[in-house]
């Protein structure tokens, strides 16, 4: 069997492993438009602040490709798919035929139009290794940095740049940082944390105009405020990279729609990772779940199905583990619907815990400063465990003893 | 002052020897003296003795009491006692040879006697038990008197000295017996008391023994529960009593009695067939006090025959040989070969496995 995988990151590589396991004699070709081989996208902020060396960015070495007999094509973009002839056309004209195709093209930055934005050399996005390298090369200590977007990418960029530049301002249009994964209280804690690290942030504001000749020199904000800017990072958000999927003609709804085997609307074309639409098992909605673990998980399922071993994807749910300036933040599922959910929370100077509960099951949580055993909360969400069966309160430090004896025996011995 | 047997327990090493003819053909004491003399080095001159069976055919219905007296008064008291309990048919000195090497001889007297009918009936005891009690009574109550032989048609002859000299002293070349046993003694300390020499006898039991049993006090306290008095504190004495208890009183056959004294190990018993296992388990349980432990070789004589026995671990030498109707037993092989150059069969007696020869025509000679 010939497999072609578009995308050389979490979902793509995870699929490779499963394909290889289930179909050892297969041929796999991976196509990536990146110049680097696989690297861990979430690590680009760590690379920026020199916490991770370049070599450690690559989480699978060359041997991985050799061992798995994978042909890796880098710096070459898949530009078209002929799903009838089962062929993929690359930017350089190469044509690859496939028996099964996986689209794992991930996300691309979403850059909203801003007045005055051209190809200024000091405007950056922050999603790829290349972005990180370029920022690293450009940034100097005394530069004034403005980051548009107080979400995950923006704050990670701020954290990475904080090591280099002393004047950083984050602009967030909504009323709180990390708006999609935190409530106001959580956001305030993060705000304090980044502020104490010397990063400024403005809420309810954003760049409305870029000023400067050849490069950005200052920004006019929505509020009318004008702030100087030597380095602008556009980190408003990402969207699924569905360009190729569109060419192939698969059904889309923002992201690629798949069935539970992660096959797209076109036979033998599968999709996995950030470019897809996933079922959120908590609220039952289909949405983009741009999460590393979900990408790996989907890649695995897609890989198995492609190799002929039926495997079901039952959906996932949003979850994040992030550390900001040394503060550990864990969030999952529903975190900001206080009116529709029963809320249990506790906040102290050291930590913040919040649980959203519905129908005796946990729908989401925020843990700031208390990462311990977050995985158990996650399992409660995933397994829809009836909270009334737990021995002890959710707000107590959770552990294996919260489960009934039968449950914990299962957990200990059930591996 | 050195204490004699009965006042203290004296460990001793020894030589033993025995010859028997199964048909009851009698022969003189020359061979047994030759045999025991060969093992001269195994004794130290502090005790020697013999037992002879079938020597008194003319008085075979009478108890033959051989008695040592230290003094006349002892003899008088004893004879008074004997006259009270027995009808004495014949009494007299046991004939001896004058020998410079045998010193300090006591008065040695012999009586052929039958229990007085009236006193026997009054005692309500069997004749043998009656006699045993009389012997024990003399030995423990009459100072200076010691009955060293009390069987019928048999006799023990013993003295302080080397056994070959003792044999000559008692003129054993002039006696004829179908079973002879002999003993040469090597005590580690003793003033040399004639009564302490071997064989030890009770009724027609005689025993010669080489060894030192480590179970002595357990055995002693066991037999003493059944009316015995171990006044000599010797192994020979306690072993004799054990045989007497098992064979005479409990009616256990001699071979089985030997298997009680040198009981098979629990490992052996566990491996036996169920019936045998039950038997030996019960015997070991009931007769645990009769188990003899420690090194010994013994030759036990009686009117029924002879039994030779080694301890369970075979810690003492004992050789047996057969030739024709004769059985030869000795501590050393050479002591057999010196009187029977080419026996038909010769072997080392196994630990705990008795060698028995029964007289085929008991009480006939």
């Amino acid at each position, binding site marked *: 069997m010939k497999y072609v995988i578009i995308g050389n990151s979490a979902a793509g590589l995870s699929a490779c492993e499963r394909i290889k396991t289930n179909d050892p004699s297969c041929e796999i070709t991976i196509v990536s438009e990146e110049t680097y081989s696989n690297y*861990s996208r979430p*690590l680009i902020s760590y690379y920026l602040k020199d916490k991770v060396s370049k070599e450690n960015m690559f989480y699978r070495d060359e041997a991985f490709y050799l061992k798995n007999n994978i042909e890796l094509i880098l710096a070459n973009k898949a530009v078209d798919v002929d799903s009838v002839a089962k062929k993929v056309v690359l930017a350089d004209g190469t044509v690859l035929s496939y028996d099964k195709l996986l689209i794992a093209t991930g996300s691309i930055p979403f850059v909203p139009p801003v007045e005055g934005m051209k190809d200024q050399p000091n405007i950056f996005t922050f999603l790829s290794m290349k972005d990180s390298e370029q920022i690293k090369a450009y940034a100097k200590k005394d530069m004034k940095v403005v980051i548009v977007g107080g979400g995950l990418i923006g704050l990670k960029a701020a954290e990475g740049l904080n090591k280099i530049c002393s004047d950083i301002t984050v602009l967030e249009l909504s009323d709180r940082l990390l708006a999609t994964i935190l409530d106001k209280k959580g956001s305030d804690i993060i705000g304090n944390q980044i502020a104490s690290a010397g990063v400024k942030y403005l809420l309810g504001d954003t760049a409305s105009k870029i000023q400067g000749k050849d490069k950005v020199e200052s920004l006019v904000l929505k509020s009318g405020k004008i702030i100087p800017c030597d380095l602008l990072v556009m980190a408003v958000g990402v969207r699924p990279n569905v360009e190729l999927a569109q060419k192939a003609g698969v059904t889309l709804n923002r992201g690629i729609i798949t069935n539970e085997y992660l096959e797209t609307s076109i036979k033998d074309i599968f999709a996995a990772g950030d470019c897809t639409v996933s079922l959120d098992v908590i609220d039952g909605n289909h949405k983009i779940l741009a999460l590393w673990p979900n990408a790996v998980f989907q890649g695995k399922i897609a890989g198995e199905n492609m190799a002929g071993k039926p495997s079901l994807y039952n959906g996932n749910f949003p979850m994040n583990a992030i550390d900001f300036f040394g503060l550990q933040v864990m969030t999952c599922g529903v975190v900001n619907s206080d009116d529709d959910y029963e809320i249990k929370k506790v906040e102290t100077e050291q930590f913040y815990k919040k649980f959203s509960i519905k129908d005796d099951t946990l729908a989401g949580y925020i843990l700031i400063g208390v990462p*311990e055993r977050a*995985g158990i909360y*996650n399992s409660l969400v995933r397994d829809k465990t009836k909270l009334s069966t737990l021995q002890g309160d959710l707000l107590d430090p959770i552990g*294996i003893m919260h489960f009934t004896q039968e449950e914990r*025996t299962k*957990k200990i011995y059930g*591996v | 002052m050195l204490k004699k047997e009965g006042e203290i327990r004296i460990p001793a090493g020894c030589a033993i020897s025995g010859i028997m003819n199964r048909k009851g053909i009698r022969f003189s004491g020359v061979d047994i003296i030759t045999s025991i003399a060969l093992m001269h080095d195994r004794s130290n001159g502090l005790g020697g003795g013999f037992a002879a069976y079938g020597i008194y055919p003319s008085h075979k219905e009478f108890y033959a009491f051989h008695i040592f007296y230290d003094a006349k008064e002892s003899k008088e008291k004893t004879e008074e006692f004997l006259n009270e309990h027995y009808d004495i048919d014949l009494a007299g000195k046991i004939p001896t040879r004058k020998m410079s090497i045998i010193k300090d001889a006591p008065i040695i007297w012999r009586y052929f006697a039958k229990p007085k009918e009236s006193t026997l009936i009054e005692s309500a005891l069997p004749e043998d038990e009656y006699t045993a009690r009389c012997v024990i009574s003399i030995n423990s109550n009459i100072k200076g008197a010691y009955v060293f032989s009390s069987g019928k048609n048999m006799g023990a002859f013993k003295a302080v000295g080397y056994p070959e000299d003792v044999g000559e002293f008692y003129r054993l070349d002039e006696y004829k017996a179908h079973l002879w046993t002999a003993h040469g003694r090597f005590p580690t300390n003793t003033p040399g008391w004639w009564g302490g020499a071997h064989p030890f006898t009770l009724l027609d039991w005689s025993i010669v023994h080489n060894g030192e049993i480590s179970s002595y006090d357990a055995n002693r306290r066991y037999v003493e529960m059944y009316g015995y008095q171990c006044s000599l504190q010797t192994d020979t004495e306690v072993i004799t009593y054990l045989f007497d208890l098992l064979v005479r009183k409990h009616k256990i056959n001699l071979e089985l009695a030997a298997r009680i004294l040198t009981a098979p190990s629990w490992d052996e018993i566990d491996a036996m067939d169920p019936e045998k296992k039950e038997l030996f388990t019960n015997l070991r349980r009931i007769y645990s006090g009769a188990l003899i432990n420690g090194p010994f070789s013994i030759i036990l004589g009686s009117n029924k025959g002879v039994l030779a026995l080694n301890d369970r671990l075979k810690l003492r030498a004992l050789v047996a040989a057969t030739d024709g109707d004769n059985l030869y037993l000795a501590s050393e092989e050479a002591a057999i070969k010196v009187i029977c150059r080419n026996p038909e069969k010769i072997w080392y007696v196994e630990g705990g496995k008795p060698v028995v020869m029964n007289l085929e025509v008991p009480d006939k000679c």
Partner: protein
Amino acid sequence: MKRVYAVEKLCLNCKLCEVYCKTAHSKSKNVIKAYKYETPVPESRIFVEGDNTASLAFSCRHCEHPACVEACITGAMVKDPETGIVTNVKERCIGCMTCLLVCPYGAIRPGHIAYKCDLCQGETTPACVANCPNHALVYIEGGSEK
């Protein structure tokens, strides 16, 4: 593979497993030095939960398909294909705790990096098991209940 299993009814809540785990993962391998003189203070990879009435020592299950390995964004968390031992390579780990977030057993301890049981890296008997005073931890093959 052999794993560490807790026998709940025997756990005393003494937490000596934690002490010896820390020591086993210290530089000096000496209890007192590990606790008092080493920086950073070594972390225990086994945790006793509960109280004197009911307690339980818990550590990594070294899953067949470990969620932590799948979720690791750096490639630090690896499962040895031969021994089955799941280890966090400390040189690669950046302490993002995604592994912790996905571990349904709560067996990973947060810190500068993620700390977890490495079965004492192939020691015949892991330190926690060897030092449990009541044999409440056993190191045995398989997963079926004892």
